[in-house]
């Protein structure tokens, strides 16, 4: 019994970690200077946060109810699959719609190559 309690606790702690991650990611979302960096914070770390949480809950259910949730696994897989695509699409959309990158952050590499034709 103790064992399962410990596993539950592990799950809970993973959830907590996830939540802290979420806060950090949200902080990034607020404080970072331009779309691209913000989207970085938004998509990458948030995804990590939610994956942590889901895994935590998955473990928790496993321990508490001996319930192996396929759907939860499916959800995790789905998130893994789609989150990067979503992030990619938004950044591209932002770029295409002509939002400038804060100059001090980085150089616009794409501009010079791939999308040049479009811009003109």
């Amino acid at each position, binding site marked *: 019994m103790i064992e399962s309690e410990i596993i539950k606790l592990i799950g809970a702690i993973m959830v907590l970690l996830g939540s802290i991650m979420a806060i950090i990611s949200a902080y990034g979302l607020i404080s970072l200077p331009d779309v691209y960096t913000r989207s970085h914070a938004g998509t990458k770390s948030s995804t990590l946060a939610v994956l942590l949480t889901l895994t935590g809950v998955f473990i928790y259910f496993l321990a508490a109810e001996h319930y192996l949730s396929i759907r939860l696994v*499916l959800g995790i*897989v*789905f998130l893994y*699959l*789609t989150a990067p*695509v979503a992030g*990619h*699409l938004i950044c591209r959309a932002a770029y*295409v719609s002509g939002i400038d990158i804060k100059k001090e952050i980085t150089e616009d590499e794409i501009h010079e190559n791939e*999308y040049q*034709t*479009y811009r003109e």
Partner: protein
Amino acid sequence: MRENDVILQTVSKVAVFIILTFGMYLFLSGHHNPGGGFIGGLTLSSAVILLYIAFDVESVNKGIPVDFKLVAAAGVLISVLSGTGALLFGADFLSQSFAYFDLPLLGKTELTTVVLFEAGVALAVVGVVVTILINISEDV
């Protein structure tokens, strides 16, 4: 610009498959778990929406050559007629019945007429949602 949606399209194909499976699951499990005709239908149609977003109307329609208006109509007819079917057995309109059968391999299985009704609902939902979306997109 040559639009490059390869990433989106590739992922979408997988995602659509997952969503369709999930939608079917929701539809079928509705009797004992959250889900049912509506939700199943809505989820299925969200899969179709994803397809439309990732690809385009014409190519999707080539793949699924159905008039979704008629799908919707068929759905409504199925659900209404499933209610009317009860009349044939001298029951009240929309009476549903269920029974348990011991089927080989599957064991105790529940069969219920609600499934037919819900199937109609799901079909109608898919038909309507897709009709609306396609028509707005096709409008210039």
